[in-house]
Structure formats: structure tokens, C-alpha cells
């Protein structure tokens, strides 16, 4: 081996050992710097993506209307276009009203956030939202939607945050089955794709009276998630030698999710938490 290659190898090993032995705090600090440096690019990319997708939709609509124009009168088409536009506005209005209603009616302080990037890594089920430490987002804060629990914040940077979804194995939630005294731990399953996610509710009694269709809620234990937030619906239950295990279909449609709400810490707990 050439001397310069040997020196490079030794330096590489030393550098790798340095990286592998960093503390959690140092890693978080490195990640924060990294996310702060790319957040502008990611945000701009998300805006560009939205504009591009709106443009494509616009083009598709234009072609559709053009085809109809050949068949119908110009005035009728104009009216139809207006109606379509109004419907779009109505849908958007309904969606925003629902979000606003959730924000107003939630028994805790929440902040709305938009998903700007979906599943950026190969194995973890995560999304990036456009809210960060500047807006009061902190590590482990619960992320909700009107349908139910979405996940928890993993790494907040200044302007953006990474959220671990409920479908990830890493996001464990203390859960109860509605109408039964059964408590368990709900988590995602390793290696499964996010297209049709199924969650696993473990540590139930082996002779639990659980049937398909029963709803699963958070217990509020574990100091992570608020109680009585809908998690999903039981699809099947299997009794094991020690514990029972149920498969749960999540309440939230993660593929269609656009706006989420992050539950902020009460001001009294904020200082203590920090």
C-alpha cells in the first residue's frame, strides 16, 4: 500500500470513529445545522412543486375544456368553467373550515403546519413540515389531524421539522381498545410500505374480547400523547402464548395528508421541558 493511501485510511478510520462516538446532543446539533442549511432549498422546492402541479392541472383542465368547446356553445363552457372553479373553491373552503374548526375546538393549543416533503428516507416513515423552533415546535410534540393521531416531532430545525409517522416502528403509542379494558402498545411494522399501512397493537391480554371494527384510542399514559385521540380500527385479533396482538388500520390517510396540527406545550410546562 502506498504511504499516502495508508495515511488516508488511518485518517478515515479516525474520522469514522469520531462520528460513531458522538453524543445524542452533538448529533442533534449537527442535524440542526444540516437542516437549517437545506431548509431554504426544501421550502423553495416545495413551493415550486406546488406551482408546477397547479400548472399541470391547469393545462389538463384547459385541454379538457377545449375538447368540450368543440362540442358545446362557448357561453355554456364559460359557465361550466366558472362552476368548476367555484367547486374547487368550495372544496378548499370546506377543507380549511374543517382545519379551522379542529384548531378552534381542540382542547389544547395547536399550530397548523403544511407537509412539504414526504418520506425522505428509505426505511423510516417520516415527513417534513413547514414549522420549526421559531414557531415553538419542540422534540416529541404530538402531531395530529382532524382524523386522528399522525405521529410525533423527531428533529425540529429553525423553520422546518421532521415528523415520525404513526406507521413507523419507532413511533410507539400507549393505546386502549374502545369498549374493553384492554391496553397495549401500538406501533408500525418494519419493512412495510406506506401505501396500505397496518399497525400492530401488542401486549393485549391473550383472551381479550376484541373483534374487528373496534376503535383504538390513545390512553394518555407515557406523557407523550394526549388521551382519547383516535388511532385506528381493529382489523383482526390473534391470541399468542403470552399476549394477544391486534392489527389496526390507521384512522389517518397518510397518503392524502396535507395539513397537520402540532400540539404545543402549555406555557407552564415549556420552561420545565426545555
Amino acid at each position, binding site marked *: 500500500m502506498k504511504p499516502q493511501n495508508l495515511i488516508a485510511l488511518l485518517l478515515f478510520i479516525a474520522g469514522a470513529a469520531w462520528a460513531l462516538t458522538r453524543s445524542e446532543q452533538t448529533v442533534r446539533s449537527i442535524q440542526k445545522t*444540516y437542516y437549517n442549511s437545506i431548509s431554504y432549498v426544501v421550502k423553495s422546492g416545495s413551493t415550486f412543486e406546488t406551482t408546477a402541479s397547479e400548472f399541470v392541472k391547469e393545462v389538463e383542465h384547459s385541454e379538457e375544456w377545449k375538447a368540450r368547446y368543440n362540442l358545446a356553445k362557448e357561453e355554456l363552457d364559460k359557465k361550466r368553467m366558472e362552476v368548476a372553479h367555484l367547486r374547487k373553491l368550495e372544496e378548499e373552503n370546506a377543507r380549511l373550515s374543517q382545519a379551522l374548526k379542529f384548531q378552534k375546538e381542540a382542547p389544547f393549543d395547536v399550530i397548523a403546519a403544511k407537509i412539504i416533503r414526504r418520506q425522505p428516507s*428509505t426505511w423510516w416513515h417520516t415527513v417534513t413540515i413547514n414549522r420549526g423552533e421559531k414557531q415553538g415546535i419542540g422534540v416529541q410534540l404530538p402531531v395530529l389531524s382532524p382524523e386522528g393521531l399522525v405521529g410525533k416531532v*423527531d*428533529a425540529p430545525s429553525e423553520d422546518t421539522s421532521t415528523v415520525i409517522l404513526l406507521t413507523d416502528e419507532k413511533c*410507539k403509542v400507549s393505546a386502549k381498545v374502545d369498549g374493553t379494558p384492554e391496553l397495549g402498545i401500538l406501533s408500525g411494522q*418494519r419493512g412495510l*410500505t406506506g*401505501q396500505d399501512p397496518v399497525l400492530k397493537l401488542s401486549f393485549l391480554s391473550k383472551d381479550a374480547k376484541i373483534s374487528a371494527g373496534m376503535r383504538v384510542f390513545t390512553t394518555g*399514559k*407515557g406523557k407523550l400523547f394526549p388521551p382519547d385521540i383516535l388511532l385506528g380500527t381493529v382489523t383482526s385479533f390473534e391470541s399468542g402464548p403470552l399476549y394477544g396482538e391486534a392489527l389496526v388500520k390507521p384512522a389517518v390517510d397518510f397518503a392524502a395528508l396535507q395539513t397537520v396540527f402540532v400540539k404545543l406545550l402549555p406555557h407552564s410546562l415549556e420552561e420545565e421541558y426545555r
Partner: protein
Amino acid sequence: MIKYIISVILLTLAACLLQQFLPAIGGLHGARVLILPLVFLCAAVTVDFATMLVLAYLCGFLWDSQHTLGSHGGDPEIYKEQIESLSFGYSIILYAMMGLLMQGIQPLFRKGKWHLSSLLSGIAIFLYLFSEYLLINFVRGDFTFPATAFYRIYLTSALTMLFSPIVFWIMFQLASLCQHTIRYDGLTRRSRYID
């Protein structure tokens, strides 16, 4: 040489930014094009050993900064079994191993057989993802290997490999701009007899 190395490092950083906008394809079991590993693999075959290690360190560091999850759990009384994450820095080692694999066929690449390197980049990405999945199983216990995980690894490698000729073409253009020769033997005639 130095100009070429700097341009390759810049290309790697650009690939890191581009990676942010390459989504997982739901219909293909969440497969995606891994442009950063691909640029590293294509670069690894064109540079010397020391530069390959520098690139492996840079790419692994960026990759882990992007993907490392926190180790925080919850109340230990409720969350008795904490789910471990892969520690920061493991990708540096995996990138170096992929780079070594690519360096192994450098003599063939220098003879002009870039298509073999292209094929090997797909194999290297398959091995990288497979090792990563095995590591996850190792740190979390309870070995599971669902078919969807295999499809994701396989389709990601295949998709990424399809883009390797483009990356090689960019590398050749960069080399040409920097007046650096990365492919020698296939382009020169050698005397068969020693004078």
C-alpha cells in the same frame, strides 16, 4: 487532478440537494432513485483510493445528518422496550465499503468498460440497502424480512442503476473540462513488444 476532485465534491453536494426532491414511488413499494449514493459510486471508480475515502466520509456524513432518528422514547414505565436507531456515522463505513467494491473494478473501467461499473453500481446499492436493513434488524432484534422490503431494495437498486450512464457521462464531461484523464487504457494503443 485537483480541479476534477473539487468538481466531483461539488457534484456530490449538488446530488445531496437534488436527493431532497426525489420522492418515493408508492406504486413501486416506496422505491426511489438514490442519486447521492449513485454519484458517489460513479465518482469512486474514477478517483484514487484516498479521494474515494474523502468522498465516502462526506457522503456518509451528509446521509446520516439527513436520516438519523433520535433515540428518545417516552416514559420508561409505559414504553419498556425502546426501539433503537442506527447510530450516526454507520453510513460512512457502508459508503467506504461500496467505494472499495467499485475501486475493485477500476482496472476494467480504465480499459473503457464503463458499463460493468454501471452494473456494479446497481449491485453495490442493493448490497448497501440490504446491509442497512440487516443492521436495522440487528439493533432492533426480531428478524423480519417481508417481501415488500425485498422489492423496495431491488427496485431502488434497479431504478438507480438506470441513471448511472448519465452520471458517468457527467463525470466524463467534468474530466474533460478539468483536462483530467479518467479513462486511459481503452483510448491508447500500446506496443505489444518491449523495445
